[in-house]
């Protein structure tokens, strides 16, 4: 077989405990058996995206929940700020005419 990799010289005895590097956090989205879209189910830690998918498979699909898994590193998600709640959402509260509740939807359209 190959010779031991020269990149790993003998490690000297360490007196202090090695620093614990936390794996990054990943958000997990699963599309269920009959689900139309992926839904956020939770989060987990993993070293890279492949490991995150494997971990998601083991943590979140043990009971046959899913047919598809998405993972995204949590730091890549941009989120709105709760303190902006007023300007962001309140203006739409009074605009009832934006709801499509005044129409009859034909059955053939299916789930919306």
């Amino acid at each position, binding site marked *: *077989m190959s010779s031991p990799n020269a990149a790993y010289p003998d490690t000297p005895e360490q007196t202090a405990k090695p620093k614990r590097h936390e794996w990054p956090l990943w958000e997990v989205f699963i599309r269920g058996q009959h689900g139309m879209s992926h839904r956020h189910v939770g989060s987990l830690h993993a*070293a890279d995206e492949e490991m995150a998918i494997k971990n998601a*498979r083991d943590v979140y699909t043990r009971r046959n929940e899913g047919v598809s898994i998405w993972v995204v590193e949590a730091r890549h998600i941009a989120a709105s700020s709760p303190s902006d709640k007023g300007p962001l959402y309140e203006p739409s509260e009074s605009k009832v005419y934006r709801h499509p509740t005044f129409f009859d939807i034909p059955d053939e359209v299916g789930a919306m």
Partner: protein
Amino acid sequence: MAAVDQAQLFEFLCRMGDNTLILGHRVSEWCGHAPVLEEDIALANTALDLIGQTQMWLGLAAEVEGKARSADDLAMLRDVWDFRNVLLVEQPNGDFGQTMMRQFLFDAWHLEMLTALTGSSHEQIAAIAAKSIKEVQYHVERSGDTVIGLGDGTSESHQRMQQALTLLWPYVGEMFLGDAVDDAMAAAGIAPNPATLRAAYDARVGAVLAEATLSIPDGGFAHKGGKTGFQHSEHLGHMLTQMQWLQRAYPGASW
């Protein structure tokens, strides 16, 4: 299917079932102790897969034996000398790296074996293999990735993985040693002769270990005596005292 000696068929089925039973129990020992939560759950899933496979193998073994014993009887009421698992799977967990190395070395064999068994002339054996193989494909992918990740990781993880490989490699050979039982299974088209699985095993394991920057130790020495029941290592007896104590202390207890 050619007629096959039922005692030899029973022996073969015990070998399959005892491998998954003993390894499944070993892996379950990690439950609540793994280095991170995600690995803990993954190991528990693997252990449960293996115990599930055990129920099928030992269930069929009990049926073939025809002495009114159940899979549970075979698992919980036999003693060390009746077990037919290879020595590799009864070896202690060691650290997490050693556990994953043992897992990978077994998974790679398990996958080749089950792949061959899906074409078995024995219908039930082919069906058990077809059900198990999907689980084992995932096992080998996961354990192989972990071996690569830790082998080609930090200098400490690399050292630990190399130590694990040096420790466990002498147990690999036993998985490919054939005997009269294997000859009979091969003649009846029930199972492959284990030696025929070696080339594919070496190719897969060699590629993963090379990527993991680990070296396979020199020398062809192989510990043996587990699958024939001739001589298990001292670790199996200690494990059975844990695994079987409840049925031994409270015979027939169920829930």
